[in-house]
C-alpha cells in the first residue's frame, strides 16, 4: 500500500486533526486558531479534489481500516458517488467558513471552529464509510457537532428550537439502531457489501423482517432528509440558527438523501428478492408532499431565513421525486440536482445573512424598511439565489429540473412528478417574487424608524456572490457535470462491482 492509497482517509483525518489544533491555538492566539481552521478547509478541498480525480478511472477503492479484511473490519470506500459528495461538502465548507470569519460569527462563541471541523469529520466519514454501523457513528458525530453549531451564539429562540432538534434526532438514532439490530440479527454482518450479498441469499422465512428493517432504515434517512411527514424539525431549526450555520446545514438534509442512494440500490436492489426496492412505493408520495409543503412554505414565510429553510425542504422534495423512480437515468438527474440544491440553499441563507445584518432592527422579516446599505447589490444577489432555488434559467437549477423532467418521463408516475415539479416551481416563483419585492423594492413609510445600523463592509457580499458564481459554473459546465452524474449513476446501479471491490474478487 503506497502513501497515495492512504489519501482515501484524508478527508476524515484532516478535520480530526484540525479541530483539536484549532481549539488549542485558540486559547493562546485567536488568529492562529482561525488560520489553522482555514488551512484545514483548504486542505480538505484539495484532498477532495484529488480523490475526485482518482475516482475518475471508474475503479472502486476499498480502504480497510487497520488492515482488517473486509467483512470483519471497517472499510472506507471511495467511488464516484463518495468523491462527488466530498467535493461538494468541501466547497460548501470553505465558502461558509470564509463567510463566518468575514462576518465575525465565529467570534460569538469559543468553539465555532472545532465544532465546524467535527461536523465536517462526520459528513466526510458518512460519505466514505462502507459499514452501516460506522455510518451510524459518523451520523452521531455530525449530529453532536451540529447541536453545538446550531446553538452557537445562543439566544432563547435558538435554545427552544435546539431542544426539539436534539430530541428528534435522538429518537431517530434509536430507530437507526433498531434497524441495524434487525439487519445484523438476520444476516450477521453490517458491512454494506456483505449485507448486499447476504440479504440476497436470505430464506423466505426472513423476508418480512428484512423488509421491515429496510423500511426502518429508510425512515431514519427520511428523518435526516426532512421528508414530509418527518420534516417538522427543519424549518424551525434552520430559521432559528445563525444563517451561516444554516448554510452549512444545507448539506445535512442531503446526507439523508445520499444514504438512501447509497444503501437502496446496493442492499435492497434487484437481487434482494422480496425486499427489492422496499421503499419505492412510499417514497414517491412522500416526495410529492415534501415538494408541495416546501414551496407552499416559501409562499407563506414571513422572514427570509424561514423562506430559505422551506426552499431547502422543497428542493429535497424535488430531489426525491427523481430518486424515487430508482432507475439509472433518474438517479443521474437527482445527483446533478443534489449538487445544485445544496449550493443554492446555502446561497439563500448567505444572502439572508448579509441582508439581515444591514437592516438593523428590521432583521430578515419580510416587511418594507427604509433604504439600507448595499440594497441594490443585495437585491440582485437575492434574485440570483432565488432563480437558482426555484430553477429558472440561466442558473443550474433550470438544467437540473429539466434533467429530472426528461428522465422521469419514462417512469409510470411521470404525470404526478411533472405536475408537482412544474406546479411547485410556479408557487416558488410567486413566493420569492413577493418577498423580494417587499424586501428590496418597497420602502417603508417616511415616518418609519430609521435603521440603527452602521456601514458594513462590502466583503460580506463576496461569499454569497461566490456561491452564485459556482452555480453559474455548474450551468456552463453542465455537459461535463451531467456526464459525471451519469457515470456515477452507472456505478451505483452495478452493485456487484462495489461488492467485488470491498470483499475481494472471490465474491463474484
Amino acid at each position, binding site marked *: 500500500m503506497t502513501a497515495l492509497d492512504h489519501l482515501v482517509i484524508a478527508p476524515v483525518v484532516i478535520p480530526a486533526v484540525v479541530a483539536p489544533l484549532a481549539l488549542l491555538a485558540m486559547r493562546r492566539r485567536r488568529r492562529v486558531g482561525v488560520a489553522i481552521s482555514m488551512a484545514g478547509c483548504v486542505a480538505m478541498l484539495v484532498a477532495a479534489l484529488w480523490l475526485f480525480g482518482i475516482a475518475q478511472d471508474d475503479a472502486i477503492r476499498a480502504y480497510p481500516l487497520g488492515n482488517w479484511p473486509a467483512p470483519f473490519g471497517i472499510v472506507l470506500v471511495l467511488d464516484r458517488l463518495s468523491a462527488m459528495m466530498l467535493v461538494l461538502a468541501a466547497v460548501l465548507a470553505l465558502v461558509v467558513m470564509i463567510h463566518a470569519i468575514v462576518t465575525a460569527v465565529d467570534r460569538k462563541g469559543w468553539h465555532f471552529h472545532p465544532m465546524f471541523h467535527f461536523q465536517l469529520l462526520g459528513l466526510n466519514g458518512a460519505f466514505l464509510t462502507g459499514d452501516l454501523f460506522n455510518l451510524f*457513528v459518523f451520523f452521531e458525530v455530525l449530529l453532536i457537532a451540529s447541536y453545538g453549531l446550531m446553538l452557537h451564539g445562543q439566544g432563547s429562540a435558538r435554545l427552544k428550537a435546539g431542544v426539539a432538534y436534539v430530541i428528534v434526532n435522538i429518537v431517530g438514532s434509536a430507530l437507526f439502531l433498531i434497524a441495524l439490530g434487525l439487519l*445484523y440479527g438476520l444476516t450477521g454482518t453490517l458491512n454494506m457489501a456483505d449485507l448486499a450479498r447476504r440479504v440476497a441469499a436470505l430464506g423466505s422465512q426472513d423476508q418480512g423482517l428484512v423488509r421491515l428493517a429496510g423500511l426502518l432504515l429508510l425512515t431514519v434517512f427520511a428523518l435526516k432528509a426532512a421528508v414530509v411527514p418527518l420534516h417538522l424539525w427543519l424549518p424551525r431549526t434552520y430559521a432559528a440558527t445563525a444563517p451561516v450555520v444554516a448554510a452549512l446545514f444545507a448539506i445535512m438534509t442531503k446526507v439523508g438523501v445520499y444514504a438512501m442512494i447509497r444503501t437502496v440500490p446496493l442492499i435492497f436492489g434487484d437481487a434482494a428478492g422480496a425486499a427489492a426496492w422496499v421503499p419505492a412505493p412510499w417514497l414517491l408520495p412522500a416526495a410529492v408532499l415534501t415538494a408541495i409543503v416546501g414551496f407552499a412554505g416559501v409562499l407563506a414565510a414571513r422572514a427570509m431565513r424561514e423562506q430559505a429553510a422551506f426552499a431547502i425542504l422543497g428542493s429535497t422534495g424535488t430531489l426525491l421525486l427523481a430518486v424515487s423512480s430508482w432507475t439509472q437515468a433518474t438517479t443521474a438527474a437527482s445527483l446533478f440536482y443534489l449538487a445544485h440544491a445544496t449550493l443554492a440553499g446555502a446561497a439563500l441563507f448567505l444572502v439572508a445573512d448579509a441582508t439581515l445584518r444591514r437592516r438593523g432592527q428590521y432583521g430578515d422579516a419580510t416587511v418594507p424598511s427604509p433604504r439600507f446599505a448595499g440594497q441594490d447589490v443585495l437585491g440582485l444577489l437575492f434574485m440570483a439565489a432565488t432563480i437558482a432555488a426555484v430553477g429558472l434559467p440561466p442558473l443550474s437549477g433550470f438544467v437540473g429540473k429539466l434533467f429530472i423532467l426528461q428522465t422521469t418521463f419514462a417512469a409510470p408516475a411521470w404525470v404526478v412528478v411533472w405536475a408537482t415539479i412544474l406546479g411547485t416551481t410556479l408557487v416558488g416563483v410567486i413566493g420569492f417574487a413577493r418577498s423580494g419585492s417587499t424586501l428590496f423594492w418597497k420602502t417603508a413609510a417616511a415616518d418609519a424608524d430609521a435603521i440603527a445600523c452602521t456601514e458594513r463592509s462590502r466583503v460580506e457580499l463576496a461569499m454569497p456572490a461566490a456561491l452564485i458564481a459556482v452555480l453559474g459554473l455548474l450551468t456552463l459546465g453542465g455537459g461535463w457535470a451531467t456526464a459525471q452524474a451519469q457515470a456515477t449513476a452507472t456505478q451505483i446501479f452495478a452493485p456487484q462491482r462495489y461488492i467485488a471491490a470491498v470483499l475481494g474478487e472471490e465474491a463474484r
Partner: protein
Amino acid sequence: MSLEFLVASAIAVLTAGGVYLSLRGRTFQVVLGMTMLSYAVNLFLFAIGRLVVDRPPLFAKGVTDHADPLPQALVLTAIVITFGMTALVVILSLRSFLESGSDQVDGIADPSDETADDTAAPPSGAVPSGPTAEREARQ
C-alpha cells in the same frame, strides 16, 4: 417461561414506556422517555447476537460454541453515545427552562401552568414567561 420471552417482554415494556414518555409535552418526561427508549434499544442490540448462556465471548480451549461478541461491542458504542446525548439534553432543557421560563418542549408555556403549577414558574429574576419572550423575539 423462557429467557427469550423475558427479554422480549422487557424490551417491549421499555419501548412502550419510552415512546409514551417521549411524546409528552415537558422536557423532563421526554428525557426520561428517551432514556427508557435507549435502554430498550441497547437490550435489543444485545439480544440480536442470540441469547446464549455460559458461552465464552471470543475463544476458549475446547469450546466450539461462542457467544457473539460483536453486538456487545455495538451496545458499548451505543451506550456511550446515548449517555453523552442524555447529558446534553438535560443541560439543554435546563438552559431552555431558565431562559424561557417554561419546561415545555416547544418552549410555549401551558396556560394552566401560570396559576395552578408553581414548579413551572421561572426562578425569580429570570426572563419572562414563554409567550411574552416569544412575542418579543418576533418584534
